[in-house]
């Protein structure tokens, strides 16, 4: 059994500085995991909006076949920075924020294992995030080689300047990697060492399982990307030739470094969202999670498989036959543990008592979108089909369905679900539903047309295209603008509710979980008395209490 050390943590309280006023805490070097969690989330939303505006300009360019809105160099910079900031500025930080906020509460701990490391990891985010944005001001403009930054394109450096966009880009990506590794060390340690008495592995909520799985990927995968980025930086600025084919380097080697992390990175993003689905469906269907243990273990199977699929991004890169076939099969196998989860959620909802609040709507929409993207994913894993659609809009449609359709939907679900806990205020349900429908319609209109475009042979990353692609691009652009507008009711709802929403009770959704046994928002120390867990996490429909000393 895991033993925790709450005494050590409580002992720290006297030496910590007096608490600054409430709102100012969020701008300080706070070591409270809840403050850091919200800092991460709000910072991430800023970058989400920035990269979202880039996306709207990109779709504005693509609404007509000609390259007529911005110069091609500007277009290339925009799609590069859209992808980069969305991943490193929005996706990883917002997930780190949710994990930071929820994991200690869910496992009955008073804080993370290393609170100062936690704050340091967070404060790197606005730093490297601003590096991405400020790179628009250096001579030659920001990086224009796509978020893959494949050499030799990425090291051509036409400006001839030492301080160029690509240099800042690589530095910021490396810093982001360091920040994420720091976060991963902290989260894994917290989950392994700081669970409250009674919380064995198979009493942990699925969200904690999936966060653990995702952070293990960060630990084994990120060093490869960070090393690749540093070698590329040396090629760019210090005259080495690791990846320069003209001087004996191998550009394909960089692709291996890059995808060794960047494919598992997709699981870093989606595993916690699987956790969110697993938390939300039982609450709003009033039923236990179907097959809890299998769902928990399947996360770890996904982690293992995710380490051996990266070459499926390189089927057209001049890879040998054996590599293509091996990685095709390993990629396809991922659908088995993933399918187990999908079927478990469907069975959880089946025969339940569904309540379609905003969180549930987003979770259901995310589930449907995920099934769709999973099916196009299987098509992509098949080498012959991939050779046709590789690097076309089919891939763009597929991964936007994963990232927006499933992951962002899941994140919205999580924010609605835990908003009362985080702020102590209730949000406005009507605005939440409006937000859902705008998002769902926008997502469908924006990303479905990308699939026929890719099948017809439209390459990704183009600023101009043949007139035969005009119809679907027009629809996609309209969808993108609706998607852009969909954020407005969300922001209005969040800001207005936080400032002057009705007070939230401790447990507005009648949910089971340690976080719902404490006040909304929780006290600085989370738990006055460390809970002792005695039952499994999803006991809906029974009257079993969750803890020995706090009820539930």
């Amino acid at each position: 059994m895991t033993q925790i050390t709450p005494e050590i943590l409580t002992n720290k309280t006297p030496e910590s500085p007096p608490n600054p006023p409430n709102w100012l805490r969020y701008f300080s070097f706070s070591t409270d995991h809840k403050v850091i969690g919200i800092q991460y989330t709000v910072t991430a939303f800023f970058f989400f909006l920035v990269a979202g505006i880039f996306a709207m300009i990109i779709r504005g360019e693509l609404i007509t076949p000609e390259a007529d809105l911005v110069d091609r160099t500007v277009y290339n910079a925009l799609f590069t920075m859209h992808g980069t900031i969305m991943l490193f500025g929005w996706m990883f930080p917002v997930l780190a924020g949710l994990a930071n906020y929820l994991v200690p509460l869910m496992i009955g701990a008073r804080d993370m294992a290393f609170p100062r490391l936690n704050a340091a990891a967070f404060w790197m985010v606005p730093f490297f995030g601003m590096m991405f944005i400020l790179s628009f001001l250096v001579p030659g403009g920001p990086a224009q080689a796509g978020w893959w930054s494949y050499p030799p394109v990425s090291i051509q450096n036409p400006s001839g300047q030492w301080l160029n966009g690509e240099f800042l880009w690589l530095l910021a990506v490396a810093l982001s990697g360091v920040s994420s590794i720091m976060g991963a060390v902290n989260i894994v340690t917290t989950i392994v060492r700081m669970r409250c008495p009674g919380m064995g592995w198979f009493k942990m909520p699925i969200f904690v399982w999936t966060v653990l799985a995702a952070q293990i990927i960060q630990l084994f995968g990120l060093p490869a990307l960070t090393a690749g980025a540093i070698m590329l930086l040396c090629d760019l600025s210090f005259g080495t030739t690791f990846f320069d084919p003209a001087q004996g380097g191998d550009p394909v080697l960089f692709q291996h470094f890059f995808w060794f992390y960047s494919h598992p990175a997709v699981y870093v993003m989606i595993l916690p969202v699987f956790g969110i689905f697993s938390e939300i469906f039982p609450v709003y269907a009033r039923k236990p999670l179907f097959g809890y243990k299998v769902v928990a273990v399947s996360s770890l199977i996904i982690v293992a498989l995710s380490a051996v699929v990266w070459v499926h991004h390189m089927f057209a890169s001049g890879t040998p036959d054996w590599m293509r076939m091996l990685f095709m099969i390993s990629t396809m196998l991922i659908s088995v543990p993933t399918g187990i989860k999908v079927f478990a959620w469907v069975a959880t909802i089946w025969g339940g008592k569904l309540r379609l609040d905003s969180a549930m709507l987003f979770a259901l929409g995310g589930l449907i979108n995920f099934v769709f993207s999973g099916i196009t994913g299987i098509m992509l894993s098949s080498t012959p089909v991939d050779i046709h659609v590789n690097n076309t809009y089919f891939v763009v449609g597929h991964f936007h369905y994963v990232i927006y359709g499933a992951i962002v939907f899941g994140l919205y679900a999580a924010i609605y679900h835990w908003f009362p806990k985080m702020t102590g205020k209730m949000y406005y349900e009507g605005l939440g539903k409006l937000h859902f429908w705008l998002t769902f319609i926008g997502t469908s209109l924006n990303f479905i047309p990308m699939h026929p475009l890719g099948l017809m042979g439209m390459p990704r990353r183009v600023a101009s295209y043949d007139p035969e692609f005009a119809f679907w691009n027009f629809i996609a652009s309209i969808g993108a603008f609706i998607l852009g507008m969909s954020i407005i009711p969300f922001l209005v709802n969040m800001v207005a509710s936080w400032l002057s929403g009705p007070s939230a009770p401790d447990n507005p959704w009648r949910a089971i979980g340690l976080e719902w046994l404490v006040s909304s928002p929780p006290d600085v120390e989370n738990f006055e008395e460390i809970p002792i867990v005695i039952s499994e996490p999803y006991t809906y429909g029974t009257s079993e209490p969750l803890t020995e000393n706090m009820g539930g």
Partner: protein
Amino acid sequence: MKFKTILNLVAIAITLGAISIGIGQLSYSWLPPQASVESQLIDNLFSFLVTLGTFIFLGVTGTVMYSILFHRAGRYDLSDGPPIEGNVTLEIVWTAIPFLLVLWIAVYSYQTYMEMSIRHPMEMAHMPMAKAIAPAYAEPMDEAVEPMTNIEVEAKQWAWVFHYPEKNITSTELHLPVDRRAHLILRSLDVIHGFYIPAFRVKQDIIPQKNMDFEFTPIRTGKYRLRDSQYSGTYFAAMQADVVVESKEDYQQWLEEAAKRTPSAAPNEAASEYALREEKSAESAWVTVVPASEPIVNYHP
């Protein structure tokens, strides 16, 4: 399970199956014309995946939609659902069936891949005798002895140039005789480019400093597009060329006519766009790699 439930399930499965097969057939129309042997093989595989995918998608989302429509809690209903925690049989079934489906898809994909036998440098490097033990091609046996169309493809930022060693001519339009296997040697002078003809469903990245062997068989006359599929910098989107597949006679005639022409500068979108940009000295643009000048070739459209 009651007999009526089983009957209902069978009826639903048959309906879903019929819809899925219909969509699977429809999926051929989502793709460009089938202009190569490879495209037929890939389209059949794709149609199969669409059929299977439609069945799974409709099955899962149909079940979810049924729950959403018929398992809603009433406004004042605060009760819980039945505390069902799992069902081992069901869980084994829904692990085993996807596993078998995956094997099926993998075997089908593998077979298709072997039939396509797309070539690439690694294989050529390690197996110099590859020709002798070549896998069965999809085209008739006599095709194997007929000589292949040999073309050298040169990719640079941002132009395609095709060299026909047979008559020693160059062109910015790719001409191919129909029903004869084409053997291309792909070369790049600067960065990685991608050789992609959607109507042929074939694609190969061109790694600089390497000769990439590449083969396919056009089977339908007509005009198609060749696009750069691997992002290659500023004028990446403009790096396209026409592909003309014609009868063997027309092809020979074209070769001979092109050989008579004196080489001249071919129009190039990247070069002309760049010249225009420099003329305007546009301020809303960043410095770029300068496009290669217009290629001097025997034939250009």
